[in-house]
């Protein structure tokens, strides 16, 4: 979004807005009744035993909570933009941790074992997940280039095959595709291992989405570029390779980065084939002692960290292309 040059007063600094917000927040905390949580215990010197504090307790707890909430917002609003963003991130992260903490987990569980469960998740699971995703994205990219050209061509066969392919693989749930490939191909006499079928399913599915991204990227290059190239006597392949594709890369990169991040997480679906990637290991390692949530949270953290790293790489690539053009 493009920021205007005239800065409006922050709504948080308008008394009427502040009052309205406080009332709304108070109503929210009152409605959801936090008396029986950790907050009620904190306030027990005032309200006595939380479960018996009744209407008075509920009112006090929600009143205190809403004061803290609004004061927090007000204080943050005075900080500089970057500091604001940082503080809000940290606070939300702590809320998330508090949410996880409320599960009453045995966090030490992930470090037990020889080798420890965390190390197994990272050495085996993380490696397999990255391996499967990287190979799949490479194949999907190749499929997407061919698919996009086919969809833009005048050749009836090419267009028909490409559009049938994108329609089918965008139309079926990925989980279903994984099953179909793993269990369907052996019916035709091709014995196929779990990892290759997982990679095949991910490549074909994401190849279909990326075909559309590449097609849009190629189409967004103005007609004048084709005409100028043709007027110089360039042939089709040369125009595509040297003029059109290089110009569509900056347009293709951001959505492709999104696809890569999405694929990384969707690779968890191949756990149904028994591939030892992050998700499979999380379920398997937790199941033994019924410590499901510990392992699932560990998996969540690994996935999240991975996507943050990928987002940073994507931002860097985007910046590089912005500088060049």
């Amino acid at each position: 979004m493009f920021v205007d040059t005239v800065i409006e007063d922050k709504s948080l600094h308008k008394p009427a807005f502040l009052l309205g917000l406080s009332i709304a927040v108070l109503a929210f905390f009152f409605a959801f009744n936090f008396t029986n949580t950790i907050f009620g215990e904190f306030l027990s010197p005032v309200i006595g035993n939380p479960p018996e504090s009744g209407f008075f307790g509920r009112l006090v707890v929600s009143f205190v909570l809403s004061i803290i909430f609004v004061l927090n917002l007000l204080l943050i609003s005075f900080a500089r933009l970057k500091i604001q963003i940082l503080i809000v991130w940290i606070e939300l992260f702590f809320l998330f941790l508090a949410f996880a903490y409320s599960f009453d987990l045995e966090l030490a569980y992930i470090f037990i074992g020889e080798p420890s469960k965390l190390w197994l998740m990272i050495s085996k699971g993380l490696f397999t997940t990255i391996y499967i995703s990287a190979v799949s994205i490479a194949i999907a990219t190749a499929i997407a280039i061919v698919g996009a050209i086919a969809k833009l061509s005048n050749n009836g066969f090419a267009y028909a095959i490409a559009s049938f392919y994108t329609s089918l693989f965008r139309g079926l749930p990925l989980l279903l595709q994984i099953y179909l490939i793993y269990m369907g191909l052996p019916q035709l006499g091709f014995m196929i291992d779990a990892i290759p079928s997982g990679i095949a399913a991910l490549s074909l599915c994401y190849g279909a989405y990326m075909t559309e991204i590449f097609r849009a990227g190629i189409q967004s290059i103005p007609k004048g570029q084709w005409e100028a190239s043709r007027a110089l006597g360039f042939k089709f392949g040369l125009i595509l390779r040297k003029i059109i594709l290089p110009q569509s890369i900056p347009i293709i990169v951001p959505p492709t980065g999104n696809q890569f991040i999405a694929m990384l997480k969707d690779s968890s679906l191949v756990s149904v084939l028994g591939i030892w990637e992050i998700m499979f290991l999380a379920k398997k390692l937790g199941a033994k002692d019924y410590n499901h949530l510990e392992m699932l949270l560990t998996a969540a953290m690994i996935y999240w960290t991975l996507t943050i790293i990928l987002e940073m790489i994507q931002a860097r690539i985007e910046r590089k292309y912005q500088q060049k053009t």
Partner: protein
Amino acid sequence: MHNSSSIENPVISLKGVNKWYGDFQALKDINLEIKLKEKIVICGPSGSGKSTLIRCLNRLEAHQEGSIEVCGIELHEKMQDVDIVRQDIGMVFQSFNLFPHLTVLENCMAGPNWVRGIDKNEAKERALSMLKHVKIPEQADKYPEQLSGGQQQRVAIARSLCMQPKVMLFDEPTSALDPEMVSEVLDTMIDLANSGMTMICVTHEMGFARQVADRIIFMDGGEIVEQNTPEEFFNNPQNERTKTFLNQILS
């Protein structure tokens, strides 16, 4: 005369050319011959078919009836060697159409290097000398978007000239420029005309037409209404439509 044959034989000849966009007829029975080294200016009101005509000459547009022959090769739907013809026909567009991801120098080297098969050093030398011709050698390492409109259009001219074409087509080359940049592009075109290039220009710059053209072609409604030398064309227009047009643009 030592090379009378090449001067007598037309480089471009059109016979009975018709073109439609759906039901709309864009070109009506165009007959035209252009000789080597001739300078032609095509003018006419907007929608008169002048851009369509010039774009048919290198087959960026298709004609449906009649024949177009360029450098001895007939242009038609199933021709094999359209890129060979196009290599010999330079074209300059209203919107420049430089390659934004390549530097000015790379824009000029692309054609000779990629399709003429000239090695990089020679292509670079040629590109630099052409950029000198259009008087912007110092911009060689910049990207097109860093240049003004007039400079971009001069690069576009240099890019075409690097292919050493036999004919240059100009499709309203100054229409997208700010007024103060029109003359630098026209000066480049005048230099080119003086060097003996065969040129076909769609333009509204009547001063340029008067100074450079051997023949001015006036089009209206997809037809060639009138063609004449600049003197006759401006001083003694024959057709009513020509007179109206000249009144409108010269007043």
